[in-house]
């Protein structure tokens, strides 16, 4: 029954999306103006219906209703409840339903609260949102119905990929999806603005919080995903330039650029067409990323849900949505009036350089991700990895750090570099000091060395905008900017330190034997079998000591899941303030020895701490912007109220 309710809600939501599109489009014409009042309520109800459908899916998974095909294929009655629920979106159909649900909810939320946009732009925006949603509704209902029944119902389900049975991963996809799909709002805003040609500071101010919110979720999603890959896959690395990782990085890069150009448009009424373009590009990158992952066109360790026919469907959707938006852009962007001008050395100038560099990195990542495909079309097989991405990316990333350090200190419109030469002495000194220290410690390659020196300088420079300010009166968005830029420096230091000073050791130990890795002494105490809810494992007990410190215990496991049968290794981590000890239990070697893989990774945790700081900076900025918008609305209301009173 629940499944049928879900399916009905999904069809209704799709029908309402169609209505929203038609009403929104007609309301823009002279004859259809009467329809204008319909659009917002329809958008809200559509979002609610999509949510009902999603809740129905979660419910059939929670109770393991095996008569639903999707549940039988992806779940199992012997699984902890939280993973039963996570299984709802740990598969293709469920994740697509999550996609339209987030799109519907985001659209509904915008329809409910967004009052800053001109009404006509709002109508065009909601029609655009409905248009994009409709494609995905069609995809779900025609090609991937999540509520399909099985008759007869099987006695037991297939189970969920054990790699996905992890608490971190249970909430990683929804977070990332909030980001991916949240960018659809920016896309629709861009469409709306192109239709009505109303691009200006008000538009940017309206768009900014939505972009920021999506960007925060993306940042958190990427950070969490990176940490998941780090401890769950047991390879000791935190980023693999895998197509799926790139798929999440590309929208983030575009959204980061969009965020900054939005700031220019809001403050200075410049970069109009560019901001619109980025709005289109950001969500396009989300869709392209999803397509690349879902179509199976690129081989990837993440290829959990691969199907070429679905790939064809998504490609058609992509062609219509992105192609349509770019045609509209080509036709209309020329008629969007030119924005304000500015000098190269100015806040705007720095932001433009930042945008160009971010776009360049985006292009590099996109090219690297697609290159195997391009080579294959030309008859060669290649795989592109860190040897390409790291140095080529750094070529643009390192200059961006310099701009990032200087930009926030510049004045709008025009400035002189000479004016703040003295201020930069402190960060430059820190760069020199850090470079000296890194050389003294030794062992760092060129990129980690540059990363560490520039990271230290940026950490100091990012705080400079707070100098000469009354900290209590500093607006929240400034705090947000400082925090986010500081976070970039922190993450960079973590990355550089990890790649420069990680110590790895692969040993075969008999119980009671010891080894050392970096400053740690590690003794294999014993290996015992342990049992979990749907797995059994061999668990190694490692007694570890940092220099002459107290003995602590690490328990890495080699797990055997029985539904579906698969082996995973659960790494064990020990976190100190200055790094992490990472242990993986391998197979039994000859002579009663056990393979144990150990890494000592100095300051590796800074990578994810930095990610969290960046996201937190975004949160401060959203709060600041929304609060000042609210104040403005309240003030305007008061003025109107007074006028009305006086008029009476």
């Amino acid at each position: 029954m629940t499944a049928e309710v879900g399916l009905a809600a999904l069809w209704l939501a799709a029908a309402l999306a169609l209505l929203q599109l038609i009403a929104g489009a007609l309301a823009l014409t002279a004859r259809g103006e009467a329809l204008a009042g319909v659009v917002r309520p329809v958008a809200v109800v559509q979002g609610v219906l999509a949510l009902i459908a999603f809740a129905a899916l979660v419910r059939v998974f929670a109770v393991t209703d095996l008569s639903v095909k999707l549940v039988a294929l992806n779940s199992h009655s012997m699984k902890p409840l939280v993973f039963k629920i996570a299984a709802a979106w740990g598969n293709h159909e469920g994740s697509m339903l999550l996609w339209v649900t987030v799109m519907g909810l985001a659209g509904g939320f915008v329809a409910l609260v967004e009052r800053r946009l001109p009404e006509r732009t709002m109508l065009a925006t909601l029609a655009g949102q409905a248009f994009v949603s409709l494609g995905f509704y069609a995809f779900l209902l025609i090609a991937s119905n999540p509520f399909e029944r099985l008759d007869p119902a099987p006695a037991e389900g297939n189970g969920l990929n054990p790699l996905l049975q992890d608490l971190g991963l249970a909430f990683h996809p929804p977070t990332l999806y909030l980001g991916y799909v949240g960018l659809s709002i920016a896309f629709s805003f861009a469409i709306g603005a192109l239709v009505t040609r109303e691009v200006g500071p008000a538009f940017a101010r309206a768009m900014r919080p939505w972009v920021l919110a999506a960007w925060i979720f993306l940042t958190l999603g990427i950070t969490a995903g990176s940490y998941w890959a780090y401890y769950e896959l047991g390879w000791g690395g935190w980023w693999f330039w895998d197509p799926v990782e790139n798929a999440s990085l590309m929208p983030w890069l575009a959204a980061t650029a969009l965020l900054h150009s939005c700031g220019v448009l809001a403050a200075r009424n410049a970069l109009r067409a560019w901001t619109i373009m980025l709005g289109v590009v950001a969500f396009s990158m989300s869709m392209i990323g999803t397509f690349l992952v879902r179509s199976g066109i690129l081989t990837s360790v993440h290829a959990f849900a691969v199907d070429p026919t679905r790939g064809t469907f998504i490609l058609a959707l992509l062609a219509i949505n992105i192609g349509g938006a770019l045609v509209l852009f080509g036709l209309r962007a020329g008629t969007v009036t030119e924005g304000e001008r500015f000098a190269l050395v100015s806040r705007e100038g720095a932001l433009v350089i930042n945008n160009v560099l971010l776009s360049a990195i985006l292009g590099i990542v996109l090219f690297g991700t697609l290159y195997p495909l391009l080579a294959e079309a030309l008859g060669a097989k290649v795989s592109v990895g860190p040897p390409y991405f790291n140095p080529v990316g750094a070529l643009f990333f390192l200059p961006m750090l310099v701009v990032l350090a200087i930009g926030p200190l510049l004045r709008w419109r025009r400035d002189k570099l000479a004016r703040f030469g003295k201020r930069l002495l402190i960060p430059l000194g820190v760069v020199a000091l850090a470079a000296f220290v890194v050389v003294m410690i030794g062992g760092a390659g060129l990129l980690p060395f540059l990363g560490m020196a520039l990271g230290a300088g940026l950490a100091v420079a990012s705080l400079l905008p707070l100098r000469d300010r009354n900290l209590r009166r500093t607006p929240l968005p400034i705090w947000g900017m400082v925090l986010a830029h500081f976070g970039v420096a922190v993450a960079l230091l973590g990355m550089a330190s990890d790649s420069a000073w990680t110590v790895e050791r692969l040993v075969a130990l008999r119980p009671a034997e010891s080894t050392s890795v970096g400053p740690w002494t590690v003794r294999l105490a014993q290996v015992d079998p342990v049992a979990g809810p749907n797995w059994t494992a061999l668990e190694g007990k490692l007694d570890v000591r940092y220099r002459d410190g107290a003995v602590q215990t690490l328990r890495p496991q080699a797990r055997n899941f029985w539904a579906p049968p698969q082996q995973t290794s659960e790494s064990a981590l020990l976190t100190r303030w200055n790094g992490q000890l990472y242990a993986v239990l391998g197979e039994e070697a000859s002579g009663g020895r056990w393979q144990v893989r150990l890494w000592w990774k100095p300051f590796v945790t800074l990578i994810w701490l930095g990610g969290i700081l960046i996201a937190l900076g975004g949160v401060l900025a959203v709060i600041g912007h929304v609060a000042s918008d609210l104040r403005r609305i309240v003030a305007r209301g008061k003025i109107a109220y007074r006028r009305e009173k006086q008029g009476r």
Partner: protein
Amino acid sequence: MSEIPIKTRGWSIWLPLALFLGFVVLVAVGLFRPADRNVASTLIDRPLPAFALPAPLTQVPGLKSADLVQGRPRLLNVFASWCLPCQAEAPQLKQLAAAGVEIDGISVRDRPKTLQVFLARYGNPYRRIGADDAGKVQLALGSSGVPETFVIDGRGRIRYQHIGDIRPEHVPMLLDKLKAVQ
């Protein structure tokens, strides 16, 4: 100080669309072409690359490329004890060996202990086995996975590459290929 004009007109406005269309064409080609994800050996009809692999076990000799030039066609089977399809194809290899076909093996990224168990359980159809611990010879042969089977003619040239496990229905075909290159 010069002002930067922000150009929003001209051909550059259509550049993103052009790039995107290129992307669509590229992936459409990738999607609609027959899905062949295998690395086909470019060495077909060419001499084998030179290699010399040690024996993983004492009971069989190791394998050098010269061993494959015997004047008679033979099969070269790339396998591993950790690979499930290799277990599935073991009866077919046994059948081919029983039919008088000489088979040599390259065991990829294997361990002597597990290889011993594998051969004890599924039988040993191999005249010689080379241990390719790093998978380098496998790559040099133009093989991307296990199992793969090469038909080698009497002069040591690769004449045919069979990708994946040998199913019972493939046995006559392989016998025909061997006969054809005689």
